[in-house]
């Protein structure tokens, strides 16, 4: 079962900037009935662990939890074996299990998976119903681990304990408790890091990993983009933890610092400036003079290479203004990318942003930038006032864009290409080019014959 004390501890995580203005002990609020939107804790846990392609992810619950969530994320993997991330596994419990408990079914499912799929490990996710019924998932996993001789990790993040963020933290707990430190790496280098919180969506990581390789930074393990369970077990031997745009995993890093004395830094790989900055932060933290010199040299080279490729786009985008309406770290990370392309970001949304995100947004947009607290009602006015040419927002805002006859990009839609690292900027530039040139936004709202 999930312990209340554990949840409380995670809710009160001191490193979480949601908590800045709150009284001690208050932490993140429990959801108000009717007001909680977005994924549950289980969803968050799954997002954080699912990219381990060599493991099977078994959802112990009824149909809703997995039915709509498998094969929905573009978290790419280079794993040469059978890629389990594009598959869905669920015990799909029935009334019988609710009455008599689902442990037997879970046990039989684990045996089936080991026999037919021979994964490196199995993650078992509890969900609302199996947590409520009181299935002893810990015991079943422990016994099965002994019987099958592979790590079988219970993940206690049933949806009703909270939202995605909390779930992601609980996933971190599970990894810390059951995997990290259970295996020694074959060899180590002074430049070993763990990447935390990049899930390699559309291959984001592959945009910057080649740079790491050129410079000589070694990724010992990843939580969890293109990750392997075998590697995360050795994570305790890394010299540095690097969190990529994922505040929810700060707790994990803080605990690893306490336990294994591994320092951590938080970076982002969106846009040119952020990518350069991120890599310099990493090499500086590793603190090796030759590594730092090498990084500087390579980054300078890569940057000038990129600048050259960006030139035609910059010409094309000169004088263009954008309004950005999206949540969390995207509010500034995409802004940074747009600015790298020479587009002026005149406004961004800070609805539901943390203090850190708001500060960053202010930093990136400058004094004249508008930080919208209620973007849904503000953005139309801002577009008029500032004479913006493009709106980057979620699908619900499309109507605003076509009414204003300006271009639109749905930033929340599942992307197929990555905007990360240096090269991702070129992908973003391409998408922007098509958006600016597409006449559809002006054409679609022509008045109907019966309106003129």
């Amino acid at each position, binding site marked *: 079962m*999930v312990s209340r004390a554990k*949840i409380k501890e995670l809710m009160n995580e001191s490193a979480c900037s949601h908590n800045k203005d709150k009284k001690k002990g208050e932490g993140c609020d*429990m*959801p*108000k*009935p*009717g*007001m*909680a*939107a*977005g*994924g*549950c*804790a*289980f*969803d968050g846990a799954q997002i954080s662990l699912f990219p381990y392609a060599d493991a099977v992810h*078994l959802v112990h*619950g*009824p*149909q*809703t*939890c*997995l*039915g*709509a*969530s*498998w*094969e*929905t994320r573009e978290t790419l993997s280079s794993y040469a074996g059978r890629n389990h991330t*594009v*598959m*869905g*596994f*669920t*015990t*799909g419990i*029935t*009334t019988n*299990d*609710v009455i008599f408990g689902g442990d037997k*079914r879970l046990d*039989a*499912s684990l045996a*089936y*998976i080991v026999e037919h799929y021979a994964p490196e490990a199995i993650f078992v996710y509890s969900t*609302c*119903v199996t*947590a*409520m*019924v009181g299935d002893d998932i810990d015991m079943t996993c422990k016994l099965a681990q002994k019987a099958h001789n592979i790590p079988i990790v219970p993940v206690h993040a*049933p*949806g*009703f*304990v*909270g*939202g995605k963020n909390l779930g992601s933290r609980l996933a971190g707990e599970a990894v810390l408790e059951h995997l990290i430190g259970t295996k020694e790496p074959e060899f180590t280098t002074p430049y070993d890091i763990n990447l935390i919180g990049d899930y390699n969506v559309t291959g984001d990581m592959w945009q910057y990993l080649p740079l790491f390789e050129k410079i000589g930074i070694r990724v010992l393990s990843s939580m969890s983009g293109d990750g392997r369970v075998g590697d995360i077990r050795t994570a305790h031997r890394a010299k540095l933890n690097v969190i990529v745009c994922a505040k929810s995993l700060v707790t994990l890093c803080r605990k690893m610092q306490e336990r294994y004395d591994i320092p951590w830094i938080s970076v982002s790989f969106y846009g040119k400036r952020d990518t350069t900055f991120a890599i310099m932060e990493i090499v500086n933290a590793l603190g090796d003079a030759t590594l730092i010199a090498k990084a500087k040299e390579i980054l300078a080279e890569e940057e000038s290479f990129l600048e050259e490729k960006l030139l035609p786009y910059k010409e094309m985008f000169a004088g263009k203004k954008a309004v950005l309406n999206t949540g969390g770290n995207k509010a500034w990370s995409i802004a940074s990318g747009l600015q790298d392309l020479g587009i002026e970001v005149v406004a961004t949304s800070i609805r539901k942003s943390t203090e850190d995100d708001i500060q960053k947004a202010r930093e990136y947009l400058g004094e004249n930038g508008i930080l919208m607290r209620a973007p849904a009602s503000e953005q139309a006015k801002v577009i008029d006032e500032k004479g913006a040419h493009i709106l980057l927002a979620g*699908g*619900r805002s499309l*109507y605003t864009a076509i009414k204003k006859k300006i271009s639109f990009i749905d930033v929340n839609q*599942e992307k197929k290409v990555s905007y990360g690292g240096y090269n991702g900027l070129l992908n973003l530039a391409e998408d922007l080019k098509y958006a600016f040139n597409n006449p559809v936004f002006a054409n679609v709202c022509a008045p109907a014959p019966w309106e003129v």
Partner: protein
Amino acid sequence: MEAKKIKLSSQEHKPLQINPIKHSQPMGAALAFMGIKNCLPLMHGSQGCASYTKVLYTRHYNEPIPLYNTSVSDITAVFDGGDFSILMAIENITKKNTTLKPELIGLHTTGLTETKGDDVRSVGIHVEIPYCYVNTPDFEGGMESGWALTCKALILQHTFTCKDIKPKKLVLLPNVNIQPIEIEKLKECCTNLGFETFALPDLSTSLDGYLSEGQGKLATGGIAIEEIANLGDAQIVVSIGRSMKSAAEALLQKNEAIEHLHFNHLMGLEANDNFVASLMKMAQVTPYPLLKRWRGRLQDAMLDAHFLIGSSSFVVTGEPDMCVGICELLQSVGGTVYAVIATVYSPVLEEIKAENIFVGDLEDAKSYFQNADLVISNFHAERILHMQEKHTALVLRGFPNYEELGNQLKNDQLYEGSTYFLFEVANKLRELKYHG
């Protein structure tokens, strides 16, 4: 690879599902409520279930989805029997957005709140807006039953009992697989045959891919709650799909004099001939010109497509009510249905004539795919077929289809839709057979 023989049974044949095709009851219920005008669909459970449901339909239909939830947490789960979270949710939602004027609260449960044993019925006494509750645990049934139960609950809880009959008033009860455009076509057909037609649920003006402002707050379905209240004087109720039979029976409880017509599906010549003949007889009318024209087109399409389809074998996966129609249509032009893999058990599956038919998942389906020329399945089959050495064609039907656009306008019903369907299948087979 030899495919494993699995028997048709309501009992599972293995302890887990791998690459599931089954969807949950709450998801079906939520969709049904979206077919009611100004309904506020409210899922009673933790936030995640509603979020997943929203994602599924948003990506399937490319439309904003009006769906709320009661945000049950582990704390409220312990002290609250449902009253608190349901009533607070309604208050919070309507207070936050005062322009929201729901005409119905469509409350449906989830596995969690069923396990807790919440009494969602009695909460209704305290709700001032018309209220409909449905028990839809996701450890029972599936999407098809969730939709059907909701339809039945709407009738049982909201339709007045009645003794009179209004001649030529017709109620259509479509199953969950029938897409928005298909409901529109069905209504249009009945109207053209002289009936005043109502569909319950009616998605024809909801999720139908229509550009307008401020979508996604309340359901924009085509039937209003007062209309549901007054369905009791219909002359005929037409249930389409085995899952909808009990909803039709619920309406008969309201008025014994209503005539019930049942059709397992409306695909292919025979089913539609029966449908049209029954309605013509009831209305004492002759067919309208376009109906005759479409029947002729379907006959022609059957002959055009018979060679390609008649020399091919098929695997169909999905909800039972969808599978039965597709199979009969394919078989009517000589297609060999090699296997049907259904999401859940339904008695209608016993009526399908196929070499293999059982309840399962895509792990089970995989070995059957290898022996088929064409697979009809949801988008999850796409990746599996890509990894397969043998080329097998694919026609996407059923939930979810995250990849293709325009799912709401796919039309497989009546003479007209069946014609399009045959051509789509035959054209896919042509690509496969003549161009590898």
